[in-house]
């Protein structure tokens, strides 16, 4: 291992260019090392801090690995039943129209058990933000096949790979919701490199800014990894994600209405 030569003299307040946002609690993240949840949490909280809307924001946590998102996000939060976050968010926003409301959901939550709630919240054009973490697997329950698991991809309930003839096809729900008149902004991002993180943060900022327009729902998919569930090292998982997940779930804006 290379020797690290730290020049501690430059660690002075006046040289501070970046720090952990205070909108993340001091609690240690419960996510696996290398998982994209932590980074996504951070950029959402940075956006809320930069917009100065901490006291006006209500977040909805799902069921899945991010069920405890409220342990890390220093804002008022509600925990939803599996898949139901968009229904909660609908009522929160309609009853509190001045607030910023977002859901944070994984692929099983949003694209399997919560498909109806997702599609109808999008179609009604609720003025909320949906952050959708797609890692192609059920992480928390131990790596089962998700609605977004790629063809041939192994999981604990598709141990020989997803056989689409038997198990059905992965669902590109982001392309699907982009078809609906109620969505204003639909984009697919990633957080595996500094460049991707900057782009994803910009997209999340745009999504939250859109809330003020009252013109519909903003939907930000973050294609992420699950190195534990995929049974790969963090680095290998990111490489596999770039080669396979991005090929099926290409990054970029899908719908941008003004």
């Amino acid at each position, binding site marked *: 291992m290379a020797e690290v030569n730290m020049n501690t003299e430059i660690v002075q307040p006046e040289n501070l260019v970046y720090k952990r946002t205070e909108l993340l609690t001091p609690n240690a993240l419960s996510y696996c090392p290398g998982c994209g949840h932590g980074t996504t949490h951070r950029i959402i909280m940075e956006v809320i801090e930069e917009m100065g809307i*901490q*006291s*006006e*924001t*209500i977040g*909805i*946590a799902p069921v899945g690995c991010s*069920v*405890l998102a*409220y342990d890390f996000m*220093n*804002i*008022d*939060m*509600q*925990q*939803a*039943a599996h898949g*139901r976050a968009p*229904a*909660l*968010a*609908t*009522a*929160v926003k*309609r*009853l*509190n129209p001045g*607030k910023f409301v977002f859901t944070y959901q994984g692929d099983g939550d949003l694209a399997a058990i919560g498909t*109806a*709630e997702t599609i*109808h919240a999008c179609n009604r054009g609720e003025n909320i933000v949906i952050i959708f973490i797609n890692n192609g697997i059920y992480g928390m329950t131990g790596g089962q096949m998700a609605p977004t698991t790629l063809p041939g991809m192994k999981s604990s309930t598709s141990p020989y790979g997803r056989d689409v003839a038997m198990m059905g096809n992965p669902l590109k729900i982001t392309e699907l919701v982009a078809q609906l008149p109620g969505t204003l902004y639909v984009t697919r991002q990633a957080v595996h490199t500094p460049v991707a993180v900057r782009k994803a943060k910009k997209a999340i900022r745009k999504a939250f800014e859109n809330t003020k327009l009252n013109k519909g729902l903003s939907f930000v998919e973050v294609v992420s990894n699950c190195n534990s569930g995929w049974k790969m090292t963090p680095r290998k998982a990111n490489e596999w994600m770039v080669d396979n997940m991005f090929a099926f779930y290409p990054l970029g804006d899908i719908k941008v209405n003004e």
Partner: protein
Amino acid sequence: MKELRLMKGNEAFAEAAIRAGADGYFGYPITPQSEVMEYLMAQKPHERTGMIVLQAESEIAAINMVYGGAATGKRVMTSSSSPGISLKQEGISYLCGAELPCLIMNAVRGGPGLGTIQPSQSDYFQSTKGGGHGDYRLLVLAPSSVQEMADFAGLGFDLAFKYRNPVLVLSDGAIGQMMEKVYLEPQRPRFTDEEILKNTPWATTGITPGRERNIITSLALESAKMEQHNLALQAKYRKMEEDEVRFEKIGCEDADYAFVAYGTSARICQKAIQLAREQGIKVGLMRPITLFPYPRKVISEMASRVKGILVVEMSAGQMVEDVRLAVNGRLKVEHFGRFGGIIPSPVEVVEALKKQIIGG
């Protein structure tokens, strides 16, 4: 000043909810209670009071909208009928776990399954013993008139906020559909933002200066913490049992026998009392108004004064179990019921009393 109107039970419930200062209604159409949402939509409550009414994509979405709204300290409600209420059970369990106040109305129809659209009382177990997963209780109010449909909307909201617990108004197709005169309360204002901050400091209204973030959840992964949460819930339910038991006694002073019945069955029994007394049979009615907390003590006391109890229900015999628990073997307790959407006639009820209790 109360206003006198002639209304269906479902409409009276909806109108009373607006007047009780409801902030939001979230529902999905199902017979025999679709009049609730139809009435609300026609009333434009958004213009009257600012109340939000939204037709959801399913009963599941509707009850979760109730969860989201309740978690912001608002007076929110839903209504449905038996199959739809079954779909809401997940959400109801979460609402109880997260201790959120809300008002739910079930216009019970005959089951199981898709069953029938005719009135029934076969959801008693589901309403009073759990229904969803986990150890929880709903506070259950059973109206037997259009007037009580109206009264229990306001009372239901008040009790829900008093206990941070869902309140279920257990109606049925008959109470919901029949028209009676009803006295309506004057309009109560909706909660102001200041009142919500003051009265529901736990609500997720956005972090205000000087307070920690509020989290609404039913999750506690540590067993010790979850046990404490359950103990607190149980203490709350015991408190309801001490303070919120409601019932009505009719003709019990000189009674040799007693009917125990709620809702529509209690209305039938009132007529049956008249018929029986014309035949020289002294029978009274004990009508539980709260099905949880259940008036066990009153029934226990009554058991030492009458010779037999007939429990009349539009079910195969559900509440009869609670009456037997209260009586604890000291007295003959029998069940008479019609089900599948059939309402028993007063004559049938008197015959059942003679056959099963007096002559049996």
